[in-house]
């Protein structure tokens, strides 16, 4: 594929323009077509974006790391939006009958569909900007923009709880990101020791000159960036917004929040780690990442045990997997490759699980796991995928997650971090048992009640997208495509992991 100078602008602008357009389009069908085609065009440009030339005098550029995260975002967005179209059509049907909320005693009215579609596309545009930013200030602006674009989507159902979740999300993430801005300023001050005055915050220039930065400014800069972007990524103990937001938003939005957005925030931390590594302070950042990683895994495991709400269970599982990513990068060496591979696997698996959770929710109308029995008789395809997704997310052998989690473990053992390795294994097994006891009970047994006529339960538009994701994860577990392997290796090299 020869380089196309329009690739990067198109990636950012296509969803932006389509988003603005879909706010104005009246017809639901036309708007849904715009959504899907924007997602498809985005995916085309994302896959062919290798060696795309930098634009805006180097402000927007793609390296292997950015491209990897961009591809994850794009694949997941297309699949989630196909599912979302089916979801919105269904939602419109039920909205006509009127959905009565017993708790509130009023009729629930969703946000207009045009607002949701518009926000989805703005969200895609903002996440793309995160991936292609080569300027740390611009990266900050883009990450804050993802918060603003996604907050209205969490409030789509206009329930009290979704309002609470959206409020917490917006406030906590905005505060976190304000701290990251402080980190950016500190970083800028640390560059003032470079001969010839301060540098612009362009990533490649920073990396080239990092060895002469002032370490006493660089270290606090990293801490602020880690805490700030870590809030958005869902690292404990600043993850408190995450389970609320992920459990209250419509399921395909949760899939995007968990599979795409958290990765984008992680990218912010990885950029900071890149600069530390170039400045010869890699060890300082790695220790912090290992600490935060294990802490997040531990917190998440504690909340997954006996979790009554199955969507919250998935949300805490995201906290756990973000911990695994941080841990992998913190360990360095081959674990960095494992972490990059795990980012791909986690996004696909968690996307699939949230979509399946959406199917279960729309049939059973409850998020309480103990109220659900006998899914395998009521909705057999969904139940099978739910089980498969459970096995995949806990890292069982035929799936890609097994390989990536194993790579990280192996690297920890090779480097002699035995305590880290034991804690890692222990937490993974606790999570496996806890999730098994919740999910197996939901799938097996006799149904407690028969909610809806069988015909309308599993439309193909709600089965095919998660099925496709499931197949991708199985394929990644059995065969690594050479193009992906190259991309993962390049991305790992960018962060400083040996291959």
């Amino acid at each position, binding site marked *: 594929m020869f380089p196309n100078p329009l690739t990067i602008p198109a990636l950012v602008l296509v969803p932006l323009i389509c988003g603005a357009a879909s706010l104005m389009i009246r017809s639901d069908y036309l708007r849904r077509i715009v959504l899907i085609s924007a997602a498809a065009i985005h995916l085309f440009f994302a896959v062919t974006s290798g060696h795309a030339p930098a634009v805006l005098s180097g402000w927007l550029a793609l390296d292997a790391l950015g491209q990897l995260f961009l591809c994850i975002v794009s694949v997941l967005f297309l699949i989630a939006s196909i599912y979302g179209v089916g979801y919105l059509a269904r939602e419109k049907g039920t909205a006509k009958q009127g959905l009565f909320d017993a708790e509130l005693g009023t009729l629930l009215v969703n946000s207009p569909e045009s607002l949701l579609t518009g926000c989805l596309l703005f969200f895609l545009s903002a996440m793309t900007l995160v991936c292609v930013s080569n300027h740390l200030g611009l990266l900050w602006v883009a990450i804050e923009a993802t918060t*603003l674009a996604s907050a209205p989507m969490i409030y789509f159902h206009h329930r009290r709880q979704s309002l*609470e979740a959206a*409020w917490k999300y917006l406030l906590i993430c905005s505060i976190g990101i*304000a701290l990251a801005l402080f980190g950016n300023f500190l970083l*800028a001050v640390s560059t003032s020791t470079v001969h010839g005055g301060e540098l612009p915050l362009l990533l490649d220039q920073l990396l080239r000159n990092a060895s002469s930065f002032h370490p006493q400014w660089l270290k606090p800069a990293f801490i602020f960036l880690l805490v700030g972007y870590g809030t958005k990524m869902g690292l404990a103990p600043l993850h408190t917004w995450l389970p609320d937001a992920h459990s209250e938003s419509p399921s395909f939005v949760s899939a995007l929040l968990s599979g795409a957005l958290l990765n984008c925030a992680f990218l912010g931390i990885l950029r900071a780690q890149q600069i530390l590594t170039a400045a010869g302070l890699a060890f300082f950042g790695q220790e912090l990442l290992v600490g935060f990683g294990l802490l997040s895994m531990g917190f998440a495991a504690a909340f997954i045990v006996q979790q009554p709400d199955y969507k919250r269970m998935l949300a805490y599982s995201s906290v756990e997997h973000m911990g695994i990513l941080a841990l992998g990068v913190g360990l360095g060496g081959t674990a960095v490759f494992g972490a990059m591979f795990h980012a791909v696997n986690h996004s696909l698996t968690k996307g699939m699980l949230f979509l399946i959770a959406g199917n279960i929710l729309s049939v059973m109308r409850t998020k309480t796991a103990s109220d659900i029995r006998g899914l395998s008789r009521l909705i057999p395809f969904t139940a099978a995928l739910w089980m498969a997704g459970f096995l995949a997310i806990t890292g069982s052998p035929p799936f890609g997650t097994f390989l990536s989690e194993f790579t990280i473990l192996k690297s920890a053992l090779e480097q002699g971090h035995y305590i880290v390795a034991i804690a890692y294994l222990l937490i993974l097994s606790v999570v496996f048992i806890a999730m098994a006891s919740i999910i197996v009970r939901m799938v097996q047994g006799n149904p407690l009640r028969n909610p809806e006529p069988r015909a309308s339960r599993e439309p193909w538009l709600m089965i095919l997208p998660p099925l496709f994701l499931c197949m991708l994860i199985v394929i990644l577990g059995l065969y690594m495509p050479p193009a992906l392997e190259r991309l993962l290796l390049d991305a790992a090299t960018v962060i400083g992991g040996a291959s």
Partner: protein
Amino acid sequence: MLDMIFVLLILTGFVFLGSGRLQFGIRTLAVQGILLGLIPLLEGGSAWWGRISALVILSIGIKGFALPYFLTRAMRKSNVLHEDNPFLGFTPSMLVGILCLGGSFWLASRLPFLDSSQPQMAVAVSLFNVFVGLFVIISRRKALTQVLGYLVLENGVYIFGVAFTVNVPLLVELGVLLDVFVAVFVMGIMIFHISKSFDHIDTDQLSSLVG
């Protein structure tokens, strides 16, 4: 002149801590926004004047006028005019403020400085406002007061940026301002929704999502 602005910025922080009337808090914030906007003018760096004037006009316009206007509207619509019952009273809050101030100057004196004493003052003022913002978010109940706290924190971070004349391009500065503007705009809409569906904007009662 610049020192005077820094002193005023500290004073606005204290006024903000000690006031329970939301309208007064919003006005204090507006004053802070205008003071902030003036800093780049007084520094007289070598930067291009067009860039400076654009920054000054936009940041005063947004932080000094647009945001206070939106906040006042949100306050009227939600019909909450007073922070009734903070977790920590207003007089103890002032004491916490004094502790924050001492802490900020101590921290600022410990950082390695490259040239004059001026940035040291700026860092202390900046940290002070960050601490005040965080404290207000934690210790007050009303959703609107928490937004005000967020803005004080944001102002604190911004002081650091302008005081060091950190080499941030205009486009990024504008992006930052735009983000803050949209954030407050969305928060204002949500406060209205919260007051509509809960009959109050006390965030300590937004607690159905736990565990």
